């Protein structure tokens, strides 16, 4: 018989990224109105089209209602009590990493993000975003040699305004949903990636988001464009200090893949989740969507969601191009009082499109973990296929696991298959492993890792190892 407490003990490791960087920051006043938006736009020296985009989004947002359909319960967010722009004070223009405030470098060093020269050997280009601004992007010259543009979105607005104007808001329009509209109005920074025709990005690109300030929200915006026959693998990581207040994170990610292009977008989300009593933690409301515009294009989302007090996130694919492919691989782990309502949308519009969904949810403690997904076959999606698999694992008798798959078909010549199951850590398997001399904690960890294997296999090498470790740490103390 498995001892409930001992499994729970396996999961208690304090949040190790919870430190605060003591740095002078420039903040604007709390609240949200047209003047604030104009101020953000002015600070970023944005062209008029972008200010118009923001103001239009703000008008739409004012008319919208906060969605309440997700299986989440949280106290009402006061949108006027949030600082919409916060940036570490540093010299106006930085020409090299040496000019970045050492405290910031130290922060990212502590987080294990390779910004400094010696760590650049990892061959991953990083864009590091601290509160509302991007502080450094590495490997830019090397990438530029291949024609790859990788910079913060603020820089892209200045240097590649044509691309921004052409693509921004085409995948996630400002009116898409409440949080997307909010983001469109106040987005501060984020990453911009452009892979030119025929280029395979020579290294993995990565963005690292760090919230440092307790009273400001983070509203980053990422735009990735993969031209014909190009490919890129993009990694995203997130952490935040421990505050006993809730911080809002409302990001928008837009991906565009043209003919034969492929984008792989991987996330390890480890925002501060709040303490055991559910105090503090990030409210994570994210809209991520990819558009497979071209023939045979491919967008693959893989995510490991372990942090945040509230997660509301549905990375989606619009499969427009003939034979385009959408993939979604997700592990969502909730512990203590965390709540996650996450899943995907696969909208098959073009013919012979294919999508695969593999979602693994693990709920421990008093947490709530829901999978919510939509698979839709449009009238022109002839010969299209979808396969979905959603498995949930429950640890302890206080956690809940929900599955809400919405399936809609308007095309007889297409096939949809969905399956879902719920289980717990099998006592027989635990006993077997223990009888082979494997420690209890390790046995649990192995089983959880095995449960998530299908998803971890899809993660880039560095992330897969990190995710595995992260999961083992997060689970410490929750398995019984």
């Amino acid at each position: 018989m498995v001892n409930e407490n001992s499994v729970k003990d396996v999961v208690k490791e304090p949040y190790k990224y919870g430190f605060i960087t003591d740095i002078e920051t420039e903040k604007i006043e709390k609240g949200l109105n047209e003047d604030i938006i104009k101020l953000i736009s002015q600070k970023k020296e944005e062209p008029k089209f972008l200010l118009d985009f923001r103001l239009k989004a703000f008008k739409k947002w004012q008319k919208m209602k906060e969605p309440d359909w997700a299986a989440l319960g949280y106290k009402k967010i006061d949108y006027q009590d949030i600082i919409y722009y916060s940036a570490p004070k540093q010299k106006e223009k930085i020409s090299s990493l040496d000019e970045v405030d050492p405290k910031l470098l130290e922060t990212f060093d502590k987080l294990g993000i390779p910004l400094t020269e010696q760590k650049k050997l990892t061959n991953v280009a990083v864009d590091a975003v601290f509160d509302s601004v991007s502080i450094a992007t590495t490997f830019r010259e090397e990438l530029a040699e291949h024609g790859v543009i990788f910079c913060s979105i603020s820089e892209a607005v200045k240097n590649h305004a044509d691309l921004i104007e052409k693509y921004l808001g085409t995948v996630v329009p400002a009116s898409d949903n409440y949080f997307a509209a909010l983001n469109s109005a106040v987005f501060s920074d984020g990453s911009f990636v452009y892979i030119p025709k025929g280029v395979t990005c020579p290294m993995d690109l990565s963005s690292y988001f760090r919230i440092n300030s307790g009273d400001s929200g983070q509203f980053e915006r990422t735009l990735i464009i993969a031209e014909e026959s190009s490919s890129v693998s993009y990694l995203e990581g997130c952490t935040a200090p421990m505050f006993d207040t809730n911080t809002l994170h409302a990001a928008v990610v837009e991906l565009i893949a043209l003919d034969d292009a492929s984008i792989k977008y991987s996330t390890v989300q480890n925002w501060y989740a709040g303490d055991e009593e559910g105090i503090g933690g990030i409210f994570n409301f994210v809209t991520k969507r990819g558009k497979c515009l071209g023939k045979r294009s491919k967008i693959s989302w893989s995510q490991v969601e372990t942090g945040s007090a509230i997660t509301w996130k549905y990375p989606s694919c619009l499969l427009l191009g003939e034979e385009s492919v959408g993939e979604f691989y997700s592990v969502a782990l909730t512990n203590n009082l965390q709540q996650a309502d996450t899943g995907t949308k696969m909208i098959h519009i073009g013919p012979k499109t294919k999508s695969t969904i593999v979602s693994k949810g693990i709920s421990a403690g008093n947490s709530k973990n829901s999978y919510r997904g939509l698979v839709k076959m449009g009238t022109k999606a002839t010969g299209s296929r979808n396969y979905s698999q959603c498995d949930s694992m429950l640890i302890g008798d206080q956690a809940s696991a929900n599955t809400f798959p919405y399936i809609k078909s308007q095309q007889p010549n297409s096939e949809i298959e969905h399956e879902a199951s719920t289980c717990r850590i099998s006592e027989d398997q635990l006993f077997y492993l223990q009888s082979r001399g494997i420690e209890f904690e390790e046995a649990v960890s192995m089983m959880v890792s095995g449960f998530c294997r299908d998803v971890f296999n899809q993660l880039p090498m560095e992330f897969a190892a990190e995710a595995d470790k992260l999961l083992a740490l997060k689970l410490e103390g929750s398995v019984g």
Partner: protein
Amino acid sequence: MEIIEKIKTNKSNDYLTEIQKICRHKLQSSPLPNPKSELWRLSNKSKLSNFLDYTFNEKDSKFDIPYPKNPQSTIRLIIGENCQIKLIEKNYSIQQLSEDELQKYIKEQISFFKQNENWSDLLNLSLSCKNHILGLKINGSKIPPIEIFSHASSNSLNAKTLVIFLEKNCDVELLQVNLGKENSSLSQSTFFCLKENSSVNHGVVSYGENRSNLLNSLNVIQQKNSAYNLGSLHFKFNYARFEISIKQSAGNAKTNIKSMQITKKDEQISTYTKIEFNGPNGFLDQINKSLADDKSHAIFEGSIIVPKIAQRTDASQLSRNLLLSNLAQIDTKPQLEIIADDVKCKHGATISQLNEEELFYMRTRGITLTEASKLQLSSYFQEIISFIPISKDRWDLLDKLLNEN
């Protein structure tokens, strides 16, 4: 809508007065279901409004049962006609529920009702009249099969209610037939209470005629060690909703559901199921099949709710759908809500068309495409039809489905 006014003014002077009052009160704030709510968002608004457009009718026209001769062994009842029954035999008894029993049970049930979730029942009971409620208390074993008919007269809306108590250790086969006459709306609510160790094979066959509509709701409470087997078939309705709510009140019960809806032309037929396990060791095996052709729309939404108390629940739900036309559509949403950890729950859903390889195989054996399609469809239907009690041998349901439709 006239019917909404009718709900507000409908007043009977019997045991139903209080029930109607409660229902009206629950419908007062918004008399129609919220079209944005999860349970009603896919429902065709104009079809629902068409359902309510017919004149409410408390009196039935003469009804001829369009089925083969009644074999002697079967007990046949028609709600609204021969509602008087009292059979006390050596092994079993079938009696009518007293007005007090009916009132008490219905009141208890509606106290949990919510406006959107139980709108069909609230509408039904707001319109109910004494002659159109049949309450039965069934006891004993070796009970002959029972057939119960409901129908709506042409150009009118009828509300029929059925309440059945299965006493302890009782075992029965019961078939409910809902018939929609041309241009009619039928509101049928059924309340089933299975006491300990009782078991029922329940069949629900609903089929309509030209432009007929149906709101069919089924509420089942299962006590310990009871077994509830449901086989249902809905077809030929312009608009039909079948809402199933099953509660295993103390767990340790078994539920088997095999349901099917077939839509053609511009029909919309939907099945909503909600299975709650309020105790440990519950069992559920559910399959829902849909077939949508022409411009029709078939919907299935099923939820399984397993709270903390329902440890060792074993539940499976499968939604299988055939989409046969470019203009038809299918929506399906099987869902699980689980808190207990020691459970085995799974669901699956598929949407596809007829298997081309099988069709090809049959054609290479000299079977025409039409015949081959029929053969494939008949095997698709057979799994459900064979689960419907009594009906299968006498009623040629399969022929009806393959040829008439």
